[in-house]
């Protein structure tokens, strides 16, 4: 009997459809795995009833001879940044502890309407701020991967979607939602040897997603292969009138359009992504990716994105500035934590609640944001950063004259140990390859390319033109077919 938890989204969907196994059997298998994986701390809340109800609906539909929904029988994990009706949603913060939304986010609602079931809410970096899942109020997520040195050092699963990446890699769910503001789907995918795509800004609705940086936030799928990501993204994407930045465009049939051939495609290699401090293994993987792309029929072109080095500092002005505005709503009045010291007036309540409720990294970013938006500094910092952002976007536009897609490493290293990176800037540098495409709103994905000397996954990133998720997915598939990545973490939990 196959271990059902080894199956991905497509295999589960197809197996339920043909009656190879029931949706209930699948749900039960994953529910058991989730319940035994508490040491990873990937799940904040387990919702087996939700998964079982969705499974029952799928099994009943099949018994009645109805056409099954696109994700019927597929149980998934839901990052805790998505508001789920009747289920605690905290963004991994103390300030939202106890908040139970009376509404469902658009993206999660679309997944349930497509027939998927929820195994639980996934842990993450607090308010999506972090690259290692070390800023959650509810404790670190620990990667299911360990180095081959036998040292047992707990490793970061990446962030901010660390619960999602850990859960998928550990086979606790076949897929999960993530969000990506500066790299929070792609970098954790790279660290844990799975796939993840951030679509073009506006493809997925932000309604009901706890806001971090509104001009950057995008929901996206994470799963173990490109096909599963395509299936999930089709269910998640689409116009939403409730999100003023939602693109009013039909959702392409990305799964049907999948092709591993890159014949006729020009793949650009941006020379500024070759940084001095890049480990030799990452450089080698990048070259390997280039060879795979050539093998798939692509022409390789060197391109230049001259403003690349300004992307991270620009992001660390823009994102905190937007966050300082978005997080102003957490004041102890309408939801979440209220800290009311003896004799406090309203202003004292705000200050005490926010001091008690926000973690250190969240406070740091709110303060940076407040500073760069304050009188006298707005033009020097925020306006300047938004102008640099135009130049970064323009660099990509110019590159598209010479190529159709870009290939880069996803992250500048493999997963590091929890507690190893204490300097904020060192942590920010994790996003050096992912932030530019975030600022430009371009679709980008990470696929696993191989393992490093310590046996840890390394990822390759593909960036595409606006709205060319198909091109990005296809290039991802071309690499996936040649990488033959089958490594998986041994269960230490």
């Amino acid at each position: 009997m196959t271990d059902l938890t080894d199956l991905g989204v497509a295999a589960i969907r197809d197996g339920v459809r043909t009656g190879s196994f029931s949706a209930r059997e699948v749900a039960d298998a994953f529910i058991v795995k989730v319940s035994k994986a508490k040491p990873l701390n990937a799940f904040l809340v387990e919702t087996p009833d939700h998964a079982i109800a969705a499974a029952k609906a799928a099994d009943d539909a099949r018994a009645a001879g109805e056409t099954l929904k696109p994700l019927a029988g597929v149980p998934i994990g839901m990052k805790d940044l998505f508001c789920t009706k009747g289920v605690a949603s905290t963004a991994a913060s103390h300030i939202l502890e106890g908040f139970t939304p009376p509404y469902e986010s658009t993206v999660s609602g679309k997944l349930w309407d497509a027939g998927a079931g929820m195994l639980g809410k996934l842990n993450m970096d607090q308010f999506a701020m972090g690259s290692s899942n070390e800023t959650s109020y509810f404790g670190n997520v620990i990667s299911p991967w360990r180095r081959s040195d036998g040292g047992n050092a707990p490793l970061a699963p990446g962030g901010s979607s660390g619960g999602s990446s850990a859960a998928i890699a550990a086979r606790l769910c076949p897929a999960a939602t993530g969000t990506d503001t500066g790299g929070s789907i792609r970098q954790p995918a790279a660290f844990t040897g799975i796939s993840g795509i951030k679509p073009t800004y506006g493809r997925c609705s932000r309604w009901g997603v706890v806001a971090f940086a509104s001009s950057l936030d995008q929901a996206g799928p994470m799963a173990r292969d490109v096909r599963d990501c395509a299936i999930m993204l089709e269910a998640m994407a689409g116009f939403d009138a409730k999100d003023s930045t939602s693109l009013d465009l039909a959702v392409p049939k990305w799964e049907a359009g999948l092709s591993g051939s890159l014949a006729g495609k020009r793949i650009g290699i941006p020379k500024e992504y070759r940084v001095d401090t890049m480990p030799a293994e990452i450089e080698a993987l990048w070259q390997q990716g280039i060879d795979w792309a050539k093998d798939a029929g692509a022409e390789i072109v060197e391109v230049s994105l001259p403003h690349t080095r300004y992307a991270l500092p620009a992001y660390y002005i823009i994102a905190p500035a937007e966050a300082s505005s978005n997080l102003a709503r957490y004041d102890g009045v309408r939801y979440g934590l209220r800290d009311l010291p003896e004799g406090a007036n309203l202003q004292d309540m705000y200050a005490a609640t926010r001091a008690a409720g926000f973690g250190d990294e969240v406070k740091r970013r709110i303060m940076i944001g407040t500073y760069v938006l304050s009188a006298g500094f707005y033009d020097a910092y925020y306006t300047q950063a938004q102008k640099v952002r135009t130049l970064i976007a323009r660099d990509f536009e110019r590159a598209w004259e010479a190529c159709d897609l870009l290939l880069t490493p996803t992250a500048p290293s493999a997963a590091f140990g929890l507690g190893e990176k204490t300097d904020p800037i060192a942590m920010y540098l994790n996003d050096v390859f992912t932030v530019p495409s975030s600022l430009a709103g371009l679709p980008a994905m990470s696929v696993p390319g191989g393992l490093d000397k310590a046996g840890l996954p390394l990822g390759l990133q593909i960036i595409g033109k606006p709205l060319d998720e198909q091109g990005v997915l296809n290039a991802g598939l071309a690499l996936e077919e040649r990488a033959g990545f089958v490594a998986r973490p041994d269960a230490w939990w």
Partner: protein
Amino acid sequence: MSVDIATVKKIASLARIAITEEEAARIAPELDNIMGWIEQLGEVDTSSVEPMTAVIPNHLRLRDDVVTDGNVRDAVLSNAPQAEHGFFTVPKVIE
């Protein structure tokens, strides 16, 4: 522009986050470091560009001016730390 303890206190006040003397002393060099790293943006010649507004040219949609929501008071109050008589309650505002 360096970030000192006085600046941190001012920012914390603007952001409505209570901060102790020790926290301010700890955060000041961290923020100063980050702002120092960000300083390099000043090198870029942006005289010929406008701030970026959207990835894909977009315009703000309008909708018909009709009521499409409401009458959900209990749902709205369902997460309130303190609610009375159908209102959110807060400490006295008027001095």
